[in-house]
Structures are given as structure tokens and as C-alpha cells.
């Protein structure tokens, strides 16, 4: 399933971008090779400066030698202009050809733009690949901090006490974890962090729980039923307090959303548990199946 979703995202993305680019080529969406008449106003400060209106955005431009004009881009200018600039190795301006000029309009020829979407997706793919590493590296510190604290809690016997308390509650969800196993401790800590909206702590504690579940896993290459259940619980995000990002975005409005969020998240959690349980039951029936099959 994950293989299909993953491939699907990439294939749909590339084919869709390709289709759009072909459409743009056929319709010449970006007016490649066609000079455009653009209204302009002269700047009051310098004779070589003008302000022009291109694709509903107002841009500053400057006349250069050899019939060239440099169009300065800003945040409001449309994406395709930025793409043209980027193709020609420049982020801030477009070097266009000035064909003629009269009192109200400039006749200019912009550099050509082809395969805009395909360029865009590849650019963001590489950006995201870099970002992924940044994200993972950023995890090191928080990870180390929580793993260190968990180690103390384990060695001092704190986790053992905790396991005794939460075991009866969690046993139904995780029937294959042996009684008294520390995995119950990290699972409940992770769930507590989720419930309180402490995303920062939830991830390291969740990873700790996954490591402990891996020690119980019979097939180290494949997710166990316990792991799937744990992941389902995490993705359905059991929570009582809204996540910090939501508070940042919505401000005080968030307080009246707390009850709806709790209700909705309960629904998604119940759904997650049911699906995980049903799959676990089904896979138990197929226990003699070829090991390592499935995704």
C-alpha cells in the first residue's frame, strides 16, 4: 500500500506537470517569442527608470544599453516571471528586449519560458530532499534529551512503576507485549504527550516505544501488529489540548474549538483502533502465509 501511494504521488505529479506543460506549449501561455505591449509610467527621479504593469503586477524597470530593459521582480510578481528569471540564473530581475517605445506603451520581448511545471516540481523535489535532512538533524537534540531522561527513568525503576499502572489499560490494545515490559511505559508517555499537545516530546517518546516494540518483533523487517496499532493511535492524534500551531494561527478562537476537536479526534481514534484490530485479526488467520509478504 505504501509503495503504491508513494509511486502514485510521484507518477501523478510528474504526468500532471507534463500534461500542463504540453498544454502551455500548445497554447503558448507564456507568449514565447511574441512581443508584448505594456503600459508604463516614467519615474520622477531618474530618466532611465520606469514603472510598468505586467500581468496585473506593478514592477520597476530600468533601461540598459543595446535595446535591453531590466525588469525588477518583487514578491507580488507572478510565478512565471520568477521562473523566467531563475532559468537565466537570476533571482531578482528579467533581462528583456526592448523593441519599441511610445508615450504610453513599451513593446518588449520577454525571454522564453518552456516546461515551467516540470522545472518547478524538480526544484521543489530537491528543496524538500534538503529539508528532510534538516528536519532529521534538527531531531537529534530533542531526541537525545528525551532518550537521556528516559534512560534515567528506566534505571531508577520509575518506568516499572508506570507500567504497572497503565498495563491494564493498554493490554487490550497491545495484547502481544509481555506483562511488565518497559514498552508500556514509553507508549503511555508518548500518548500522554500527544494528549497534552506536546508534539516536541511525543516524537522522541514514540520512537523510543517503537525501538522497544522492535525488540519484541519476530520479523525485524516488517511492522508488527503492535507497531501498526501504535502508529494508528499516533496518526489519529488523541488529544485534549489543541496543538501549539493551531493556537498560534487561531489565537483565542481556539478555546471554542476544543470540544469539537476532542469529539472529532475521538472518532478518528476509534476508527484507527478498529482498523488496526481488524487487520491484526485478519493477519492472524493468515499466519501460515509466506513470511515477509505484504508491504
Amino acid at each position, binding site marked *: *500500500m*505504501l509503495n503504491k501511494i508513494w509511486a502514485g*504521488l*510521484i507518477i501523478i505529479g*510528474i504526468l500532471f*506537470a507534463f500534461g500542463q506543460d504540453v498544454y502551455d506549449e500548445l497554447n503558448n501561455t507564456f507568449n514565447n517569442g511574441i512581443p508584448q505591449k505594456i503600459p508604463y509610467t516614467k519615474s520622477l527621479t531618474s530618466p532611465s527608470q520606469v514603472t510598468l504593469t505586467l500581468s496585473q503586477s506593478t514592477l520597476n524597470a530600468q533601461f540598459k544599453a543595446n535595446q535591453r530593459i531590466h525588469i525588477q521582480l518583487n514578491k507580488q510578481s507572478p510565478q512565471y516571471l520568477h521562473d523566467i528569471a531563475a532559468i537565466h540564473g537570476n533571482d531578482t530581475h528579467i533581462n528583456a528586449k526592448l523593441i519599441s517605445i511610445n508615450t504610453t506603451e513599451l513593446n518588449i520581448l520577454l525571454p522564453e519560458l518552456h516546461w515551467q*511545471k516540470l522545472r518547478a*516540481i524538480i526544484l521543489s*523535489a530537491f528543496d*524538500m*530532499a534538503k529539508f*528532510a*535532512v534538516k*528536519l*532529521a538533524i534538527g*531531531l537529534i537534540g*530533542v*531526541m*537525545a*534529551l528525551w532518550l*537521556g*531522561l528516559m*534512560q*534515567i*527513568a528506566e534505571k*531508577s525503576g520509575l518506568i516499572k512503576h508506570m507500567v504497572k499502572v497503565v498495563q491494564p489499560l493498554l493490554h487490550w490494545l497491545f495484547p502481544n507485549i509481555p506483562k511488565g515490559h518497559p514498552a508500556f511505559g514509553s507508549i503511555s508517555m508518548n500518548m500522554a504527550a500527544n494528549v497534552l*499537545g*506536546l508534539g516536541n516530546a511525543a516524537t522522541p517518546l514514540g520512537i523510543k516505544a517503537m*525501538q522497544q*516494540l522492535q525488540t519484541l518483533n519476530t520479523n525485524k*523487517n*516488517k*511492522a*508488527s501488529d503492535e*507497531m*501498526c496499532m501504535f*502508529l*494508528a493511535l*499516533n*496518526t*489519529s*492524534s488523541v*488529544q485534549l*489540548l489543541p496543538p501549539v500551531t*493551531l493556537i498560534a*494561527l*487561531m489565537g483565542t*478562537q481556539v478555546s471554542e474549538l476544543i470540544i*469539537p476537536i476532542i*469529539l*472529532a*479526534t475521538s*472518532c*478518528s481514534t*476509534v*476508527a484507527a483502533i478498529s*482498523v488496526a484490530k481488524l*487487520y491484526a485479526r485478519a*493477519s492472524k488467520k493468515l499466519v501460515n502465509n509466506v513470511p515477509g509478504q505484504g*508491504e
Partner: protein
Amino acid sequence: MQQLTALIIPLLILFIIGYGMIKRIAVYEEFVDGAKDGFNIAINIIPYLVAMLFAIAIFRASGALEFILTMLTPLANLFGFPAEIIPMGIIRPLTGSGSVGVLAELINTHGEDSLIVKTAAVMFGSTETTLYVLAVYFGAINIKKTAYAVQAGLVADFAGFVAAISVTYWYFS
């Protein structure tokens, strides 16, 4: 409630270390021992995260989402809810930053008081970035075969999506 969250982590740290001291644990040494793993885990996660985020980036940048949206709009109208919240439902399982963007945009165009924004916010609050969680959690322990975890996660997201719409409409009307 907000004050509570601010207190929990410092109290928890105090409690763990204090309890360790009472039990005569070499707290500093144990902390360092445990923390050592942090680096390896993060490095383990990198290939999984790159694979996932790059695929999602291609999908998002292609504009396919907007296309799917126009296809789904009549369906949304049929069920009587605004199509504007569909992007949230599709983006939420894929990327956290993307869904923050969608929500911010909705707030911009419709205002915080609108039912659309409330629904989207409930959706945001009640589900998680399934594919990211999957990549991070399974990446940390080097598991590529994720069995039925994706299915369970996505069903949970879908249930959260439907529940968010119905609960918000019921609660605020």
C-alpha cells in the same frame, strides 16, 4: 489549560531526575548513555524522510491537487459542505507545513469566525501528518515493510475528516 502545559515538562524533568537521585542512580552518566542513541536514530530517519518528502513535494508542486479539487467540488456540493475544506483533508495526511499554509490561507479569505475555518481547524487539530509520522517512526527502527499501518492511518484521517465536518456543523448551528 495553557498554564498547565507550560508546567508539565519542567515538573516531569524535575521528577525524573529527582527520583533518580533518590534511587541513587548516576543520573548524569545514565543521561549521556541514553542520549547517545539520538544521533543514530536521526541519521536512520534521513532516507525515509527524503523518500517521503520528495514524493509529496512533486505531487504538491505539480498542481494536481488543484485539479483534483475542481473534480471534487460537485461532490462536496452534493453532500452539502463547502469544497474549500477539501484541500485540508487531502493535504493534512501529507504535510504539516502544507496544512498550516492551507489553514492560514482559509483564515485570510474567510476570517476566523467562519464555519469553513472552524471546520478546517478542527480537522487540523484532530488528525496528524500520517505519512510523516510513518516515515519517522518506522525510519527510526529501519522498517521498510509497514504492513497495514498506512491503511489504519489513512482510515483514521478520513474518519477525522468526516467527523470534523459533521461535529463542527452540529456544534456551531
